[in-house]
């Protein structure tokens, strides 16, 4: 054996020491490229929203008559300094974002399609929150009767008419759709925004939903994944305990089967809204989640300390670069 050791030593050097500096340099370059492209991409993302905001609308394709009225209303109402007016419940911001209005699903509607009775001449004031709230729904009803009828029967609709404390908080058309920048539904962007629409008032439900496959997939752009309204309905929402609900004992399976044709009763008992690390979660789910949390902390902490100490010793003894091969 001994006679071969000299050549073996030679070989060992060739395999380890001679390549170290070069390889370390390559790794450094690769890291630099990764970081540089990260910084680049980060700067482009922050720029994007700014550019979309500044695009001016083109009103050329508007119908002449309504365009005329709309333009006149906007002469005043697209002025940001118009400011707010006080009504008996709070303030109304009189500013209308003209670009957003023209880009909205109602971009072609004249202002007085909803604000009936308003003309561009100096107009009478209705500084009354109740007026707005009532007319808000009524205005929509004129053209979207189907949705209005459904909404009226729904839990949100019933609450909003009840005049109770919960009713104040229950959404009317414009709480979910907005007023002067109503978006077309059915696009991916709209579907991705639905969880935020409901999340304004149901934040906890939104968080748990986003942690299921559906939520993750829709966030990353898989259009066929379910959102809140695919399970709960949009205008016909009822508490799960109501037999009419799309998620009641009797209806939940067909609801899942819209997209999971092979689903069985067991499938529909999957828990959509569960936070695994919450004590309210079923015990077994909670136990597994906590076990992993502790395990991850323990393993990473131990591995991290072991690694750092190893590197420390290696540097201290000059094992990395000094004496080649660590010997």
């Amino acid at each position, binding site marked *: 054996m001994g*006679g*071969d*050791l000299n*050549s*073996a030593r*030679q*070989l*060992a050097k060739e*395999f380890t020491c*001679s*390549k*170290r500096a070069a*390889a*370390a340099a*390559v*790794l450094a370059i*690769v*890291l630099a490229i*990764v970081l540089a492209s990260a910084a680049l991409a*980060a700067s482009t*993302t922050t720029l994007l929203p700014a550019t979309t905001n500044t695009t001016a609308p083109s009103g050329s394709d508007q119908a002449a008559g309504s365009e005329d009225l709309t333009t006149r209303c906007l002469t005043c109402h697209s002025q940001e300094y118009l400011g707010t007016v006080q009504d008996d419940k709070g303030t109304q911001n009189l500013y209308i974002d003209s670009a957003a209005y023209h880009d909205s699903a109602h971009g072609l509607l004249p202002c007085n399609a909803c604000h009936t009775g308003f003309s561009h001449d100096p107009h009478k004031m209705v500084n009354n929150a109740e007026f707005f709230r009532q007319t808000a729904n009524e205005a929509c009803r004129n053209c979207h009767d189907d949705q209005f009828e459904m909404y009226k029967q729904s839990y949100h609709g019933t609450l909003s008419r009840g005049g109770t404390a919960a009713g104040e908080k229950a959404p009317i058309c414009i709480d979910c759709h907005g007023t002067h920048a109503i978006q077309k539904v059915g696009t991916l962007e709209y579907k991705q925004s639905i969880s935020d629409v409901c999340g304004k008032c149901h934040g906890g439900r939104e968080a748990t939903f*986003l942690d299921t496959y559906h939520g*993750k*997939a829709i*966030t*990353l*752009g898989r259009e066929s994944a379910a959102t809140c309204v695919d399970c709960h309905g949009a205008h016909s929402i009822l508490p799960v305990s109501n037999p009419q609900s799309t998620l009641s004992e009797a209806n939940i399976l067909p609801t899942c089967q819209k997209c*999971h044709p*092979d*689903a069985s009763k*067991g*499938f*529909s*008992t*999957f*828990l959509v809204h569960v936070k*695994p690390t919450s004590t309210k979660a*079923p015990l*077994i*789910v909670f136990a*597994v*989640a906590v076990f*992993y*949390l502790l395990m*991850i902390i323990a*393993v*990473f902490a131990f*591995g*991290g300390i*072991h*690694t750092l*100490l*190893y590197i*420390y*010793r*290696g540097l201290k*003894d000059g094992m*990395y670069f000094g004496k080649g091969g*660590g*010997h």
Partner: protein
Amino acid sequence: MSAGTDAKEGMRLVYHRFSPFHRFNHYLVMISFFGLVLTGLPLKFKTSYWSQVLMDAFGGVAAAGFAHRAFAVVNILYFILEGSYMAYFVLGRKGPIFSDDSIVPGLKDWQDMKGMFRWFFGKGPKPLLNRFTYWEKFDYWALFAGTVLIGGSGLMMWFPEATTRVLPGITLNLALVLHSNEAFLATGVIFIFVHFFSAHGRPESFPADEVIFSGYLPVEHYIHERPLEYENRLKAGTLDQVVRPAPSKAKRRMFGWVTGIVTVFAFLVASYTLLLIIWPLFF
């Protein structure tokens, strides 16, 4: 490489550590793991800018899901092969389970670990390490056991309708929690804390250890890295079972390239994954 070493080609000896079977299995694990991490983690870290970039690069969530399943098949293949080998080793070849050579953890590993910590603090010599060190054993078994859990839960999520025909719906909740956390744990263990460090970051292997690709390492290196195995073999006279003439220069160069390419690629995948995970903390 100097011309002088070439002349002595015939005299070189190397130590053979991994058989072609184990090297092949390592390729399976490596390729499937990279693929699974890249197609899986973006779902877990859905709000990260880099998740979206990666998903778009794969052609969307559905396409990435398909790729995830394809890589999963490769991963399961590794598991079947390694499991069969274990069964063959124990039942067929009647190989020793508790020996100095074995991958099964024993008391010595505990002592080695204490010894290493003493060495870290300069309070003792580096322990004489055996054929498999305690961190290599941890790596091996963590992966094997992890594959059972992650593969099992993954298959349940792959076939959710079939799973819930037999089991209640909460099984899918459990599968998701398990899969998601185990994947995160495995990614950390492999990309940072244990595996990459032992293969690239340790002073003994920095910047890359070729042995898993070529199967051998220079005898000199072997003696220093695995002193106990060397000593045992010297005493038992079994050194010639593992020491062989070095392969040709062309072959050595090829393994050098393979190692280099894999190292750069692995480094890229690991950096990207870390970037993806860390990004949401700051943006």
